[in-house]
């Protein structure tokens, strides 16, 4: 029988228990033995120890007090979906693109880039620099800011490769918490579920600004202007560059211009989350307009880019953080500080996904082919929106469903409440987040009818 250790730190906040306080080494060993013997013979002590037939007494873990964390609300949907045996189950939870056949898609250009990598025997797997792959960084900045961007030409942009959108937001948040004079970030209401955690753990305090109007299922523009207007000068503002997640509601370009003026007049710091460039409208340039509007006025901003959706590189974790600065010298100093955030987090970013992106962006033909494949994905989603809308109308489902075709990007904020969602999951095996968000990418022409049945039932039977 193996002896187990006993840690006096079973409950981290309590003082040292008697056996270990001031006794001699001999006493301590005797105490340990006694505890072993007590455990063997005393059933009451055994009750307090988790039963396991194969175990003898286990020393108390320093982490014994830890409770199980709740499932991530978004990723937890897929977990639940996977457990469901129903043949008609539909996963409209996580924002990952699916084909008409309901399959994940690896783009042709990605496969070709991959082959290039595999066939190139001179390629090594050495550590990237802390800031990542240089080519990738330059090309990513051009992608979002435009090849002719003055900020780039003047070397005022520092770009560091990060782990997809999440990683870019986190590194940016940590940098701001250390070097920026304002510690408050305003995020739209609602927003992607992970934003709050990312910025809180970065060391920022999170406030919200009005964004979505449930009555119109569109933008609450007045509320947005009011809230940003009353934010303290210098506060950070998180902006979804396009295809707002979860609502799919974007400001028009005219509204963006007003937002820009307000932000600049109050010296607020814009932080863009660009997770869907090219995916929203089908055009990379069109989807980048809001960001370019801000970069063009000479002011500073942060931009988090992700290639998870628009290049289908989800699990490779490819993204970039760009900080547009006033001068090249500032950009260089900022970059050096970003390295200090990254090094103790993961040292340097993963090479594979960034290499794929760099190959595609560098090559004229691959780039063009990418834009075509990207447009095809965006078009399929737009067509799903139309089909769902038409089907709900044909069914005579009560309510105004026009927001389905007005909203943009991968998600539709249906307006269904948590009870209706739970009903749809239970009775129709539809998996979606409880805020009523559905991923259009998870729909196909074949599955639209089933979803319509579910929505119709939910809306007529559950209030």
């Amino acid at each position, binding site marked *: 029988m193996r002896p187990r250790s006993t840690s*006096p730190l079973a409950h981290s906040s309590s003082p040292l228990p008697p056996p270990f306080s001031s006794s001699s080494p001999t006493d301590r060993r005797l105490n340990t033995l006694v505890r072993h013997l007590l455990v063997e013979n005393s059933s009451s002590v055994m009750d307090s120890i*988790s039963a396991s037939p194969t175990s003898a007494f286990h020393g108390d873990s320093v982490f*014994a007090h830890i409770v199980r964390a709740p499932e991530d609300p978004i990723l937890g949907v897929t977990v639940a979906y996977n457990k469901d045996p129903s043949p008609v189950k539909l996963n409209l939870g996580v924002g990952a693109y699916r084909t008409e056949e309901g399959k994940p898609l690896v783009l042709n250009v990605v496969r070709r880039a991959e082959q290039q990598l*595999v066939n190139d025997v001179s390629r090594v797997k050495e*550590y990237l620099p802390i800031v990542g792959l240089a080519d990738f960084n330059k090309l990513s900045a051009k992608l979002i800011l435009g090849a002719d961007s003055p900020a780039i030409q003047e070397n005022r942009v520092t770009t560091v490769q990060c782990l997809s959108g999440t990683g870019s937001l986190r590194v940016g948040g940590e940098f701001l918490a250390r070097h*920026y004079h304002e510690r408050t970030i305003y995020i739209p209401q609602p927003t992607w579920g992970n934003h709050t955690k990312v910025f809180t753990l970065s060391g920022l305090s999170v406030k919200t600004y009005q964004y979505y109007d449930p009555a119109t299922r569109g933008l609450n523009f007045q509320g947005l202007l009011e809230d940003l207007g009353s934010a303290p000068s210098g506060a950070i503002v998180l902006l979804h560059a396009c295809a707002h997640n979860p609502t799919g509601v974007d400001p028009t*370009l*005219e509204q963006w211009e007003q937002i820009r003026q307000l932000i600049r007049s109050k010296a607020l710091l814009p932080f863009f989350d660009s997770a869907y460039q090219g995916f929203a409208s089908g055009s990379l340039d069109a989807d980048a307009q809001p960001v370019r509007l801000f970069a063009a006025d000479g002011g500073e901003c942060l931009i988090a880019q992700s290639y998870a959706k628009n290049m289908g590189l989800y699990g490779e974790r490819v993204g970039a953080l760009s900080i547009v600065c006033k001068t090249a010298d500032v950009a260089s100093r900022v970059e050096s500080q970003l390295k200090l955030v990254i*090094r103790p987090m993961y040292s340097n970013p993963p090479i594979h996904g960034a290499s794929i992106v760099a190959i595609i962006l560098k090559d004229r033909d691959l780039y063009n082919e990418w834009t075509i494949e990207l447009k095809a994905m965006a078009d399929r989603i737009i067509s799903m929106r139309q089909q769902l809308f038409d089907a709900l109308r044909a069914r005579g489902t009560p309510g105004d469903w026009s927001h389905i075709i007005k909203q943009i990007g991968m998600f539709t904020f249906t307006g269904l409440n948590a009870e209706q969602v739970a009903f749809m999951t239970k009775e129709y095996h539809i998996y979606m987040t409880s805020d009523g968000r559905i991923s259009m990418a998870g729909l196909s022409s074949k599955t639209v009818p089933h979803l319509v049945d579910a929505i119709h039932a939910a809306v007529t039977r559950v209030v």
Partner: protein
Amino acid sequence: MALRSAILKKALCRSSVAGARSMSLWRNVDPAPKDPILGVTEAYLADPSPDKVNVGVGAYRNDNGKPVVLECVRAAERRIAGNLNMEYLPMGGSVKMVEETLKLAYGENSEFIKDKRIAAVQSLSGTGACRLFADFQKRFCPDSQIYIPVPTWANHHNIWRDAQLPQRTFHYYHPESRGLDFAGLMDDIKNAPNGSFFLLHACAHNPTGVDPSEEQWREISYQFKVKGHFAFFDMAYQGFASGDPERDAKAIRIFLEDGHLIGVAQSYAKNMGLYGQRVGCLSVLCEDEKQAVAVKSQLQQLARPMYSNPPVHGALIVSTILGDPDLKNMWLKEVKGMADRIIGMRTALRENLEKLGSPLSWEHITKQHDALILSNRLACSATVG
């Protein structure tokens, strides 16, 4: 289109709006010092001399000074390319990769694996595993601190500092003998408050290459039990130290036999040459399955706001290799080959220095383990034949 360019033109002409401020928000940002280790490589790359030698960063080189991609890795990549999708991994990473990785550290037939007592997640190599553990330690034992050996890998200090945990040091390296300061080490273990957290290098201590002997590890383990200390092992070189992964895991196995509930950071950067892929694993041995489930869920809660889920490619390479007996054997041979070459380099370096008639003692070069040598006397003028 016309509307868009009109708005853009307006924005460009705007000089009166406060957006065109003259001063940067970052004007007070100081330039950060270069990373002491990675900065060496930067300087090396910038040097035009044909005679330059980079003995800075810990990345394996073959006899021609070139980086190496292992054959087993190439084989795995050929299998992977074109065949699989790139969907998100779960927050805890690749289950298959984690399972295989735990076997390396805890033993192929470990009862802890069978009993599902290990909370484990895929991590961003060794750095990511240490950082995740440090954040976890801070969250759930907020009043704790970490004891770090002197010296240690420089980034260890950064990691626990950014996790906002106070650091203490413990004696480790003995400069006079260029070996282990065992007495100092044991004293520090005894004098630390009961239940302290200690960072231990499982094998091939970085940067000294000095490891405790098996007997010494047993004494350390015993003293840890007496004091109720928590042992966190950073194992970045399993297989690289002796050429035998089982042997390199000895310290961990001793602690497991003695009943410690340990934490382990594992990395495939060196032993599988997967440096830039960032593949590793963080594990925490718990009292039972229920606790392991709880701890794992909390580790995931820390990963989610850092990077959501870990990169898939490197994990696929690892699980492809370790899951295939032929590839695994190929790997074991290649790891031994790398370790042997390094041991050979130690011998050659020592012999050459002695041949050159150096008055100093160089026996520590072959006594120390693995790729790293701590040599405060290695003068710039010394040349290796």
